[in-house]
């Protein structure tokens, strides 16, 4: 109405689309736009020396789960792929559970500190998280190598005579992912515990509940959204992990991320790599939608 007297702030004068355009353009070119090309490539024919031949084919999608026997042409499951899928799921799940076992008490510990200290403890959790993932993985590698600190200590103490082979095993990958993603578990659980009213705990004790019962019946239900959020935040990057299995799994112990990379390297099967990438994307997106729904439901319940 009174546009002549009231000058709207700069940001309101120009259409939001103009303000958004630089970010959206960069993201379109180098983040979500190329995902569509991946989808297209998954339906093309593999070139002999990498790359693709531009003719339609569903071979890649077929090869994700199944393979034709080299000799008698019968169909079978792609055992190698399924084994890697299975390892990815198993390792991601174990990592998530162990992260919860360590992360919950840690978040609880921080949430029960005096308010002024809490931020400092959270900073201690977050600082390693924001440092280089490769370096943290490398730190674990040095620790568990045959000539690393753990084995040297155990040998010096006379517990073992020969180094235990920990590096290049599934265990190493799990430890690495646990180490790298643990802060993602602590963060949301802490957020839900921070808002928790500990008078409820006191009330439960007054009603003769014991510690375990208080934990199980009072604290856990209230922090469920945080636990779900933390579990998914750990599970998703663990499923898509690439650096950790590459460094700690030593090439043989592959996860989905490494299988995808292989198709663009030695495997020379770009369409298969593209199809596998889409499969990973679908798994992750489905988990994310589940998470948002679960979080939304909880939020509505409290509102």
């Amino acid at each position, binding site marked *: 109405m009174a546009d002549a007297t009231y000058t709207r702030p700069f940001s309101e004068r120009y259409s939001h689309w103009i*303000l958004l355009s630089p970010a959206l353009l960069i993201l379109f070119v180098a983040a979500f736009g190329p995902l569509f090309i991946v989808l297209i490539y998954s339906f093309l024919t593999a070139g002999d020396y990498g790359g693709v031949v531009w003719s339609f084919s569903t071979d890649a999608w077929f090869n994700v789960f199944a393979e034709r026997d080299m000799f008698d042409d019968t169909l079978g499951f792609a055992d190698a792929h399924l084994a890697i899928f299975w390892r990815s799921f198993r390792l991601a799940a174990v990592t998530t559970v162990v992260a919860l076992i360590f992360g919950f008490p840690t978040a609880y510990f921080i949430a029960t500190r005096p308010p002024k200290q809490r931020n400092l403890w959270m900073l201690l959790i977050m600082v390693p998280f924001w440092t280089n993932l490769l370096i943290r993985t490398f730190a674990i590698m040095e620790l568990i190598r045959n000539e690393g600190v753990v084995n040297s200590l155990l040998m010096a103490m006379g517990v073992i005579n020969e180094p235990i082979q920990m590096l290049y095993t599934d265990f190493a990958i799990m430890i690495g992912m646990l180490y790298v993603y643990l802060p993602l578990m602590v963060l949301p659980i802490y957020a839900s515990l921070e808002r928790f009213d500990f008078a409820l705990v006191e009330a439960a004790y007054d009603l003769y509940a014991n510690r375990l019962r208080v934990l199980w019946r009072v604290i856990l239900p209230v922090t469920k959204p945080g636990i779900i959020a933390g579990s998914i935040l750990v599970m998703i990057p663990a499923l898509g992990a690439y650096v950790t299995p590459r460094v700690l799994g030593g090439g043989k112990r592959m996860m989905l991320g490494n299988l995808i990379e292989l198709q663009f390297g030695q495997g020379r099967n770009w369409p298969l790599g593209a199809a596998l990438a889409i499969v990973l994307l679908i798994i992750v997106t489905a988990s994310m939608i589940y998470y948002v729904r679960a979080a939304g439901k909880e939020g509505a319940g409290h509102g």
Partner: protein
Amino acid sequence: MADRGFDVQKQRGFTTIALACFVLLYTPIVLLVMYSFNVGTSIAIWEGFSWRWYVSAWENEQVKVAALRSLYLAVVASFVATSAAVLAALATTRRPAYRGQTVVFAIINQPLMVPEIVTAVALLIFFALIKSFTGYTGGAFLFVAHSAFCIPFAYMPIRARLQGMDLTLEQAAADLYGTPLRVFRKVTLPLLWPGILAGAMLAFVISLDDVVITEFVKAAGQDTLPTYMLGQLRRSVTPEVNAISTVLLAISVTMVVIYFILSQRKN
């Protein structure tokens, strides 16, 4: 209460697990830093203090080139990403709700949700396509890729700051006939500054540390410090890698602590 003689908040064993957690979180990093100063080549037996691995890293031409490329890349990418993020944050907080807002939000945060390996593969394919059409194989691909995945990290603190800011100041300035650009420069920008700095710090660290996307996008001879290290890890490692790691760690930790202080400070 007092007769029970215990803290109601306390759960048995939780403190022990929590403290163990902190120790386990820092032990590997502390050891990594410690052995970067080792005289010998061992990463388990301490043989005395020396700077020799820092000197050898400094004198390693490959490391120097990779370090400079990393820094250059991080500076440019964080600048581009932060500028784009400021504008985007203004559009998502200082405008009435509009159609497509949820989609815009999802697009901005997309690099956080899609696994890095998927984005890396997508960029490899897309850039290979561009290379085959144009013949261009220079460093621009890395700059564009880094700018893109830095945007959400720069966007988050800036948006949080804008949302926490009191609108009345901007309105008052506008009521006093401040031109829109002047209101932005004299009122919004100074208040937003800590958010912008925090966003830029985060973007810088994210760019500096990236391995996966860089590994797939880089052409031969375009190694950054992390991809150089990844290549080294395949061979037998000397504490020289520890020395490089320590320097990178020091930079990240400094940036993150500054970011933390900036984002904690209230208006």
